[in-house]
């Protein structure tokens, strides 16, 4: 754990200095490897026979050893540069805090402790202001120190993974090593995971984080700080792998086949998400809580779980489950929503801390209605995505309880659109360890009544904007029964509309959203307007708009209060 004092004394430029030296060394290794290979080829032109064949083969392999070395060591400069940037940003934050507070009665000790000097109490009316300033300073200092620590652990882990092959082999026999057979499997009960983790020595935990982060990062029951360190390493490794593959595919140019075009598109999409995550992880600026990468995978459409603020120490935790089209590549917008929910919660109760988690921990449908006959059912009308997500979301929530420090936190699980279906199915079938459930823009949550969700209906909240077309997404059977009229009794695709009073939960207000857009028929015939539900995609996605009633109300619920906006 890096301390405030150590961060203040850090010299990030030395990492960049080392990075430049590494780049030079790597270039020499690569160049000389090419030379060795070239000399071997030259030998083949002036020497023939069995001995010559053996010799040239030897030089070819020797050249490959150089090349392999250059490839592995070639990743070191980027690790050091990334670390330098993270440390520099964290250091700049604490330096700025100290500098800004210097002329004020808010004191920052050499150890980073923030307190008020007696002068702060000279004017009673100013005391709340100084206290708020001190609180913000603590948040920023803690965030910066945590960011530096996370970057430090990640960089150390990556460097340990970039040793020469012979050294890597030797490391596996280290006394701190842990047999991988002892690492709990994915899906293990979070309490069992936590018991195992806490039973390891510091050296063993460090060894695992540095050598096998891929086995640790997605385990529920591992503390957030450690998961974050592990996943940052995994993310960096995966980013490098994807970039290498992208470059290979780009180099093929017109020779790429259809599958390779698809692969390239998928890689570019995932790299977009990775860039968004990296930017948020590095952002410890004013008003932003330290982000923690609690889960990461490039399998399938790619998944990631990112917390704004440490959930293990927060007073309130909201887990936000986004819906259709969610994937690693699209996570950037959801990270912004999480940040804005933290702000909303802070506005609702400045005295409490809140961690907002974006949970892209499931394979979400990628289209609302799939019209490709070969992929029928692979869209948001199918509930199999929600069914597949239940165990993972349930276990994640349990893990939050297990690793939380101090008093029990106030936990909310919030689902938007198809994400609300995921939350509802999980609550219905697995039971969710949550104090509040929030649904926004829901197409149904798998039950007819709030009482079937295993959470006190007084804490089941839902809102659907007046212009959100999701409320017209009827269950097909009811559509046939009730016709195309907007009958309030009709079930939605995935169950009763939770934003209706009949559902038995608590309905809170949202702004209406952008007006509906009526689809006009432009083809032949007498119709100028098709009598089908009308779509305004905007209203389905405006629940987090700054200043909106829904955002303010969600902040109140997340902090354990009742909605205040009508």
């Amino acid at each position, binding site marked *: 754990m890096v301390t405030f004092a150590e961060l203040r*004394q*850090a010299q990030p430029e030395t990492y960049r200095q*080392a990075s430049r030296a590494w780049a*030079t060394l790597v270039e020499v290794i690569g160049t000389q490897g090419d030379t060795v290979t070239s000399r071997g080829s030259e030998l083949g032109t002036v*020497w023939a026979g069995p001995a010559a064949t053996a010799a040239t083969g030897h030089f070819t392999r020797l050249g490959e050893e150089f090349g392999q070395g250059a490839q592995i060591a070639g990743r070191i400069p980027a690790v050091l540069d990334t*670390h330098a940037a993270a440390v520099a940003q964290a250091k700049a934050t604490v330096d700025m805090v100290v500098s800004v507070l210097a002329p004020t009665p808010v004191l920052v000790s050499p150890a980073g402790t923030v307190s008020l000097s007696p002068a702060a109490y000279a004017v009673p009316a100013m005391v709340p202001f100084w206290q708020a300033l001190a609180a913000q300073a603590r948040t920023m200092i803690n965030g910066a120190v945590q960011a530096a620590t996370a970057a430090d652990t990640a960089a150390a882990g990556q460097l340990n993974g970039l*040793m020469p092959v012979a050294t890597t082999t030797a490391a596996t026999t280290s006394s701190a090593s842990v047999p991988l057979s002892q690492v709990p499997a994915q899906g293990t009960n979070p309490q069992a995971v936590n018991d195992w983790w806490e039973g390891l020595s510091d050296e063993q935990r460090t060894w695992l984080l540095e050598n096998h982060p891929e086995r640790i990062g997605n385990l529920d029951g591992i503390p957030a700080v450690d998961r974050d360190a592990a996943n940052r390493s995994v993310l960096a490794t995966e980013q490098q792998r994807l970039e290498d593959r992208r470059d290979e595919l780009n180099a093929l140019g017109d020779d790429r086949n259809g599958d390779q075009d698809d692969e390239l598109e998928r890689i570019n999409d995932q790299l977009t998400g990775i860039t968004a995550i990296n930017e948020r992880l590095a952002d410890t600026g004013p008003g932003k809580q330290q982000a923690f990468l609690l889960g990461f995978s490039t399998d399938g459409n790619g998944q990631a779980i990112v917390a704004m603020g440490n959930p293990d120490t927060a007073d309130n935790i909201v887990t936000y489950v986004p819906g259709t089209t969610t994937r690693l590549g699209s996570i950037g917008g959801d990270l912004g929503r999480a940040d804005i929910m933290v702000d909303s919660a802070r506005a609702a109760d400045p005295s409490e801390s809140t961690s907002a988690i974006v949970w892209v921990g499931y394979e979400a449908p990628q289209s609302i209605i799939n019209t490709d006959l070969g992929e029928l059912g692979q869209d948001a009308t199918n509930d199999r995505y929600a069914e597949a997500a239940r165990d993972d979301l349930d276990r994640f929530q349990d893990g939050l309880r297990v690793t939380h420090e101090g008093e029990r936190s106030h936990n909310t699980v919030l689902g938007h659109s198809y994400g609300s279906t995921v939350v509802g199915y999980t609550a219905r079938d697995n039971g969710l360890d949550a104090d509040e459930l929030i649904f926004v823009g829901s197409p149904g949550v798998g039950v007819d009544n709030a009482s079937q969700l295993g959470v006190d209906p007084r804490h089941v909240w839902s809102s659907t904007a007046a212009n959100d077309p999701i409320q017209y997404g009827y269950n097909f059977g009811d559509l046939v029964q009730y016709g195309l009229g907007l009958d309030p009794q009709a079930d939605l695709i995935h169950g009763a509309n939770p934003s209706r009073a009949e559902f038995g939960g608590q309905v809170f207000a949202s702004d209406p959203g952008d007006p509906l857009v009526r689809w006009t028929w432009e083809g032949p015939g007498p119709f100028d307007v098709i009598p089908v539900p009308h779509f305004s995609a905007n209203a389905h996605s405006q629940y987090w708009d700054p200043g909106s009633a829904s955002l303010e109300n969600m902040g109140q619920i997340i902090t354990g209060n009742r909605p205040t906006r009508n």
Partner: protein
Amino acid sequence: MSGDGAFFSVEYDQVGRVAGRLSEVTDALADAKAGAADLQAVSGSNAGFTTVDAALRCAQAWLDEVDRLTGRVETARTRVTDSVTTYRDTDDTAQGWFRTFETGLEG
């Protein structure tokens, strides 16, 4: 030589020249290693960061790796040089035998 029908041909001087030029590789590696002090630039600063220890371990491991690769190149160069010498010696010996035979000093 080994095996039926096996043959070889060696351009002694050319092979020797190629082997000699391998010293450029070992020289370049030695120079790179000598100039790599900044790999350890993080030492002495950044107390409390585990990255420092990892970076120093990494630097030492790769400098050792450079030594190992240098040794492999030097050994290979020696093997080629020795092979050429052996070929040439054998050739000289055989040549000597037949010249001696031609001049009637023997047999």
